[in-house]
């Protein structure tokens, strides 16, 4: 009766603990994925529309009427630094510089920021056709190379060809368009942008492990290049893991407990032998002389 009760109780306990331990296990499994240096993404904002006057740029977490970030008086050619933001949905809105935060925005867009990813939200195109473009920025480079992409934001020179040394990065790139990333050999390059009537060049360091966006801009009267570092890492990724410890403070490994257990066992054997000696019946004593036969 009692045993049955115990069995039943154990069963109930198992029913309770089973799912709980499973949940714990799942949590433990899920935790590393959620807690990598992710959970957040990066976002930067840019004004690349030549004939659009300066704007205030607002970043809202989705459904939150209070702006999370406001960039005041952002003029053409300005690109902000990256902001670290929690992964999720955001709204980017542009209002004329100094306009009331409650006034309807000139333009707005929504963006879904994924953990560990970087984005540029850029106002591009002519003022009468302003668009907010969401650009996905790369965060990995091929081994030993640099990545570069071109944004054409010059309205005066409608088509621009961009070269790095003798390598043509893009030919006749139209206004308000951009290239995808191109891998180039690491080094300092003479980057040249040529329009129909103007050209400009700049010496740009494209180090291995770095990712760049080069923006072609209208500077009053001539073309200009702006080199943005989208991301940078080590130029050479070291092999293996660094050996930064020699063990002076490490706890010594625990000695094996086996010899001690063997010793205890020997002791028990001795006890047993002694006990046998003490309680052995006298008839069984050794050294009994055999009966003499005469």
């Amino acid at each position, binding site marked *: 009766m009692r045993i049955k009760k115990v069995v039943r109780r154990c069963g109930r306990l198992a029913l309770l603990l089973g799912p709980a331990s499973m949940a714990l296990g799942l949590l433990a499994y899920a935790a590393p994925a*959620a807690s*990598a*240096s992710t*959970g*957040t993404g*990066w976002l930067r904002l840019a004004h690349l529309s030549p004939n659009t006057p300066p704007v205030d740029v607002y970043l809202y977490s989705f459904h939150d009427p209070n702006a*999370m*970030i*406001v*960039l*005041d008086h*952002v003029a053409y050619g300005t*690109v902000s*630094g990256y*902001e*670290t933001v929690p992964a999720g949905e955001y709204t980017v809105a542009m209002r004329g510089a100094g306009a009331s935060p409650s006034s309807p925005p000139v333009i707005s867009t929504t963006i879904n920021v994924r953990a560990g990813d970087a984005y540029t939200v850029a106002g591009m195109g002519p003022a009468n056709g302003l668009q907010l473009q969401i650009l996905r*920025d790369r*965060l*990995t480079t091929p081994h030993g190379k640099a990545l570069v992409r071109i944004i054409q934001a010059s309205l005066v020179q409608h088509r621009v060809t961009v070269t790095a040394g003798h390598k043509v990065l893009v030919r006749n790139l139209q206004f308000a368009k951009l290239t995808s990333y191109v891998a180039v050999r690491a080094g300092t390059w003479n980057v040249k942008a040529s329009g129909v009537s103007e050209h400009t060049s700049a010496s740009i360091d494209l180090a291995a*492990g*770095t990712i760049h966006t080069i923006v072609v801009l209208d500077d009053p009267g001539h073309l200009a290049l702006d080199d943005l*570092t989208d*991301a*940078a*890492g*080590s*130029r*050479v*990724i*070291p*092999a*293996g*893991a*660094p*050996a*930064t*410890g*020699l*063990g*002076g*403070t*490490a*706890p010594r490994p*625990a000695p094996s*407990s086996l*010899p*001690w257990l063997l*010793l*205890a066992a020997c*002791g*028990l054997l*001795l*006890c047993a032998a*002694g006990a046998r*000696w*003490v309680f052995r019946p*006298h008839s069984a*004593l050794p050294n009994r*002389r055999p009966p*003499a036969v005469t």
Partner: protein
Amino acid sequence: MTRVLAGRGRTSARHRRPRERRPIARSAGTALVVCGLLVTAVGLGGWALVSHGSRGHAASHGTSRDGNGFAAGARGKVGRISGPSKRPRRGSVGRPYWLLIPAIGVSSDVVRLGLTAAGTLQVPPTAAVAGWYTRSPRPGGVGSSIIAGHIDSKLGPGVFYRLSRMRRGEYVYVIRANHTLAVFEVTSVRTYAKSGFPAKTVYGPVPDAELRLITCGGTFDFATGSYLSNVVVYATLIR
């Protein structure tokens, strides 16, 4: 007659001998039992000490790892940022020169580290100083700057002995050669097995100005003379 005598002799011997030998046997047996008990006690005592000791070690390892592996929380900045001046500028960033981490009592010279012939990261020549990997971005410039230091030497604690005890939100200060100060805030502290060290995550490109402090941790393998894990502190520039 002789037979009788002999018979008597035998019987008397048979009756007498047990009476003489039994006490000796008994005391010898008792001595054996006592010895046996003593040996058992010593054996069990040793075993208890050893197993208790190892449990103590395990516990201390557990606590030292507790501080590792929290989520990089959202550093949600709220408020007006006037002017788009936040873009870190290259060129204005000097080489790191001194490292200060008040939370774990670090104040150290920063030496320069390259690569070994085997292509691994050089480590500082002494355990007392930290080192900056010269092929990583400078602290405060765009990208992931790498500073490594020893957890210990053969004799005692090194500059990053307490690195694994850092917590999110604590500050790291780097003084640069052009007398500028970069302030970083810890976003996460992670421990990785050396066999699965995520080189791309640690050394790879990032879009903002970050700092990674690297040391060893986890269990020390006395057979190979090396720790089995690495501790990496991730921090982001705040000023």
